[in-house]
């Protein structure tokens, strides 16, 4: 970075034009907001695709206003793009790009990210990756139809939309690599004085491990993406076995490739990716729980070690997605064992969070409600994963709605609730105003009920074996008869969920303009630096007038003998007089 113009100082800020300030900004807070707004729009769009699919599933063949009856081709496009958009363009950018970008430098006491211009580039790669993905709807025969997993041989012989999907992924992977390098360097190099690794807020730890997962797991998928591009554009046969016959007759390719190779490379990324989806969420929830129970996080160190362990193990469990590929018992045993082992740290973190609740005088605000909602929902998601991790039970459940139910419990009422919690929690930091609590409650309770209405029946439908990705939801299968009526329940719930997002959208935009102004900078009386030391919101350019020095761990709430019930990290306390504090600090 060149000196002086690497990022904006306060006095140069007013000279910058609109584009420089809001579009080509190098300020991590602006980039965080760019990520946030873009990702929320993508989430809404991906949700919309899913609503159309649910409409079709509840009443197959019905005419949808403006769109007409869905064709199977459209259904497949919507399905593939729903998954892709939600994972790669919605949740990860929101959790990492938005929350990570905005909060991490503030929490560690850094003036910005380590490489502000790379940070900007990362957003722009993401944005254009999204544009490529969306524009694939308009190419001949439409967007990719091979699912978010893009399994060959189907994906190899798919229509042009699949090529767009691959180029879009290349852009998104580039974006997340730039971001990951930036996060890791920032966290290692730019911690304020006294901010040792074991004084980092748990949210920062979660982002740190997440960045490592993105850094090391994405490249093999990029490699696989290049190979699939070669298959499609250069007519190679990396993923095409010999003697393949399609509806149009035998394929004229050399053959000799392996579809399983794609699955290995894909899941080598995609299992760590599911932890990318969940770790930042755990981080957000931890911050909010500690703040609203006014207690130190129970077992902070244990949680940190668990998250490191999770990150490490997430690289060697991937083939639990491939139990029915004809895998032998030896290797299958290996992956079953690692899968069972990796559920331990998840349980540790969840338990630590629950124990944190014990004996706290809990402040119930909307952020806290969403964080509380996360706990049981993530619990259901994780527990339903266990039968999937064991081959004998996975074989009948694989590729059924049970799997869809499992991971949606983790990601939807799990991660997305945590993200909502984060929005309600950090909104006053960004805008200097609070969001409306009543609308927030409506949003929470409505969403909680609707989410369960959508995803619980999926678990029930999956058990008799209703397959995922069916255009008619399983109408033609006799074993599905008994559970078909749940399709209506789920679809109605999905529209109810949409309805209950309206209070959020209204609340969000209204509060930006008219929300109640916060009385003090540290609105939630929090101990972490982004609240206690950073300037009063809305923060302009630059983070701290002077970089604070950190004296103790992140969650010194209710320290016995201390004047207030929270002691910010940059305020020295004499820990020798306090037993509780000492045990946290040690």
């Amino acid at each position: 970075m060149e000196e002086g113009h690497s990022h904006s100082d306060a006095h140069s800020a007013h000279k910058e034009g609109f584009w420089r300030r809001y579009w080509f900004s190098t300020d991590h807070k602006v980039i965080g907001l760019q990520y946030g707004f873009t990702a929320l729009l993508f989430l809404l769009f991906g949700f919309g695709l899913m609503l159309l699919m649910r409409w079709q599933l509840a009443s197959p063949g019905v005419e949808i206003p403006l769109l007409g009856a869905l064709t199977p081709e459209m259904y497949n496009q919507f399905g593939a793009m729903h998954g892709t958009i939600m994972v790669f363009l919605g949740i990860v950018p929101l959790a990492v790009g938005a929350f990570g970008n905005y909060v991490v430098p503030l929490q560690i006491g850094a003036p910005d990210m380590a490489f502000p211009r790379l940070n900007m580039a990362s957003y722009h790669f993401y944005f254009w990756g999204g544009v490529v993905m969306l524009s694939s709807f308009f190419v001949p025969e439409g967007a990719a139809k091979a699912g978010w997993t893009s399994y060959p041989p189907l994906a190899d012989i798919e229509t042009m939309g699949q090529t767009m999907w691959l180029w879009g992924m290349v852009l998104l992977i580039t974006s997340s690599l730039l971001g990951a390098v930036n996060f890791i360097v920032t966290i290692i190099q730019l911690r304020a004085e006294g901010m040792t690794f074991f004084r980092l807020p748990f949210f920062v730890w979660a982002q740190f491990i997440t960045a490592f997962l993105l850094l090391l797991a994405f490249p093999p998928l990029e490699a696989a993406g290049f190979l699939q591009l070669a298959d499609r554009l250069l007519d190679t046969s990396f993923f095409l076995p010999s003697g393949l016959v399609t509806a149009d007759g035998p394929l004229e390719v050399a053959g000799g490739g392996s579809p399983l190779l794609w699955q290995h490379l894909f899941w080598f990324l995609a299992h760590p990716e599911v932890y990318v989806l969940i770790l930042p969420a755990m981080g957000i929830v931890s911050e909010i729980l500690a703040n609203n129970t006014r207690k130190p996080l129970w077992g902070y160190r244990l949680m940190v070690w668990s998250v490191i362990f999770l990150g490490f193990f997430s690289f060697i469990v991937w083939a639990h997605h491939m139990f029915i590929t004809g895998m032998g018992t030896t290797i299958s045993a290996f992956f079953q064992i690692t899968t069972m082992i990796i559920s331990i740290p998840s349980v540790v973190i969840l338990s630590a969070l629950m124990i944190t609740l014990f004996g706290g005088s809990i402040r119930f605000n909307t952020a806290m409600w969403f964080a509380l909602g996360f706990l049981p929902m993530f619990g259901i998601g994780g527990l339903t994963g266990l039968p999937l991790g064991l081959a004998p039970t996975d074989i009948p459940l694989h590729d059924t709605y049970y799997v869809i139910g499992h991971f949606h419990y983790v990601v939807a009422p799990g991660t997305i609730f945590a993200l909502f919690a984060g929005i309600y929690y950090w909104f006053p930091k960004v805008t200097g105003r609070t969001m409306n609590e009543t609308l927030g409650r409506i949003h929470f309770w409505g969403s909680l009920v609707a989410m369960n209405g959508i995803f619980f029946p999926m678990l029930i439908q999956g058990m008799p074996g209703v397959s995922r990705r069916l255009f008619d939801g399983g109408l033609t299968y006799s074993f599905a008869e008994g559970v078909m009526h749940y399709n209506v329940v789920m679809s109605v719930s999905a529209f109810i969920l949409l309805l209950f997002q309206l209070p959020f959208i209204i609340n969000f935009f209204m509060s930006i303009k008219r929300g109640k102004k916060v009385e003090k900078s540290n609105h939630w009386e929090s101990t972490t630096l982004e609240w206690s030391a950073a300037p009063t919101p809305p923060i302009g350019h630059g983070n701290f007038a002077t970089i604070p020095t950190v004296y103790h761990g992140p969650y010194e709430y209710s320290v016995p003998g201390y004047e207030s019930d929270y002691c910010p990290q940059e305020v020295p306390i004499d820990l020798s007089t306090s037993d509780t504090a000492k045990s946290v600090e040690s």
Partner: protein
Amino acid sequence: MAEEMTLEDVKRHVKVYITVFIALAILTVVTVAVSYLHMPFTPALLVALAIATVKAALVALYFMHLISEKQVILWVLLSAGVFLAGMFALFLGAHADQEAVATLATLILSSHVA
């Protein structure tokens, strides 16, 4: 590399670079020469990989200064190395296991047909 390098240090480094260059050139000649012997596959592979590893190590240690690099960087590389090794081992393991299953299945099927 340490910031506080003196002129003398740099000159010493330059000598090392030239030596490493010569070693790399010789090893390249050796690996090509060995390939003209047309050894059976396994020994050929082992020799080629061994020589490549030595060459790569020379480049990494001396040209990329890993020999005197800081701990953080070694940790980063170690993590990549571990995951890479895991990937290779499990890819190969999965493949071998799958082959075994396929052979077994063919055996069972053929015995049923017969």
